């Protein structure tokens, strides 16, 4: 009997939860805010689904009732992707070590 592809996706999902569990516990507490902003940015990879929806013009017109939702989702996800990564970068740039040369 063949295994349903869903089971493979489920395996990826479960294993990723464990990967996430161990990776996130190793994040230093002082970087918890950047962790939140970067997880925010990467969860916007949902834009992949939005692009598929936006480009699905099988009726011939660019704007149909489903592609409009795709375009809206693209805009929202794009705000998050750019905003999330840039604000994370801005925060991380501020974390500096003590200057050893100056006493």
């Amino acid at each position, binding site marked *: 009997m063949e295994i349903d592809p869903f089971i493979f996706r489920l395996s990826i*999902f479960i294993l990723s939860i464990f*990967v*996430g569990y161990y990776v996130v516990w190793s994040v230093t507490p002082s970087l918890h805010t950047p962790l939140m902003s970067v997880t925010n940015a990467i969860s916007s*990879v949902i834009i992949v*689904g939005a692009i598929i929806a936006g*480009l699905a013009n099988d009726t011939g017109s*660019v704007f149909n009732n489903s592609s409009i939702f795709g375009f809206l989702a693209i805009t*929202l996800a794009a705000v998050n992707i750019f905003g999330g990564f840039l604000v994370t970068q801005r925060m991380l740039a501020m*974390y500096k*070590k003590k200057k050893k040369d100056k006493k």
Partner: protein
Amino acid sequence: MISANLSAIFYLISGVLFILALRGLSSPETSRQGNFFGILGMTIAITVTFLSLGNFSAGFIYVIIFLLAGGSVGAFIAYKIPMTAMPELVAGFHSLVGLAAVFVAIAAFLNPGAFNLGAPGNIKLGSLIEMSIGAAVGAITFSGSVIAFLKLQGIMSGSPITFKGQHPLNALILFSIIILIFLLCTSQSSNLFWTLLVVSFLIGFLLIIPIGGADMPVVISMLNSYSGWAAAGIGFTLENSALIITGALVGSSGAILSYIMCKGMNRSFFNVILGGWGATDQSSTNQNKEQKPVKSGNADDAAFLMKNASSVIIVPGYGMAVAQAQHALREMVDTLKKDGIKVSYAIHPVAGRMPGHMNVLLAEANVPYDEVFELEEINNDFANADVAFVIGANDVTNPVAKTDPQSPIYGMPVLDVEKCKSVLFVKRSLSPGYAGIDNDLFYKENTLMLFADAKKMTEDITKNL
């Protein structure tokens, strides 16, 4: 156009890059590289999606336009936002992820053919379940984050909003969501799909209104987790491994953060979610409060104490963020350090309005991160320190958590500030903190209260040093 197998491999690569992005955050040195991996992973995912669709017609132009429009708004916000507003920003971003998940689910429901899920009215059962779960969780994330945003921004009162029958009502609505998903999957009716969305928006709203301002660290982490599960739900629908991996990562990340925050308050997750804290205990402690003597001082006294100290520990809290006192604080510390005084910072896990809030503010004020310590790292040092400078923190220093089993915060890990030779407490008034209980520390013999705005007091002390 590239083959489905090749694009699946690329999605896997971008999933791995996202794991590396989080992994980089294990230390500040590697974190910037981690963020770069994240950006790279996102670029790969988006590019591969375009290539696999192979559709560069008029629609493609619109996709780029919307992408750039959203992107420039995001970039603008990212550069303009002050660091003190980070909790609001993160809550706002969560709401966008939630809403995007809802929109993608709607698009997939209206045009399942585009996603290879069957035809309208005859969507594959598995996909429909995944889609409706993704949509429901996305909707809850959206409306919950909007409420969290409004509370953090101060547009909505930070105090818990409770009413009679709240919990039974919420339980009923959550139950009805499960029923709706079941009915939707058997009937494929679009009316049920819309009802499901409306009910999910409603429950997100109802779940967050009873939660108070200082519990926001838990709420934000929880919504972070939800946004991940929503993405994973959509990922299953789209059969996309990048989305599934990311959703699982973000979901577990948010869950761990909520756990850490709950532990920092010694409260169970359900206790926080059910809302309201300390409302019952106020009356009992109010009576004997007025009689106790309090020593209060001015900037001059504080400066004198600190000048004669050899080590000082700073305990920042939400009040520092409100007063935007972090830069003034660092200037004060610089002056102290010139006199050879050892200064370190002690951060309680739930200080501020989101995980790591204080660390970001101190980093913004150019405080080197190796002078900033977590609770467990520094708690033993208080006994050897001369002065503890508490600025804008309250409940997290209350010794009652260790001594009084009757207290609502009993068992909560606290900073052992009272073990210092002397304690300086910058606060506007004697009013109790969020937990609604009196802080014994105010009345200790070695405590000097400095009643003033945190920023102004810190500046005055610097002048007097």
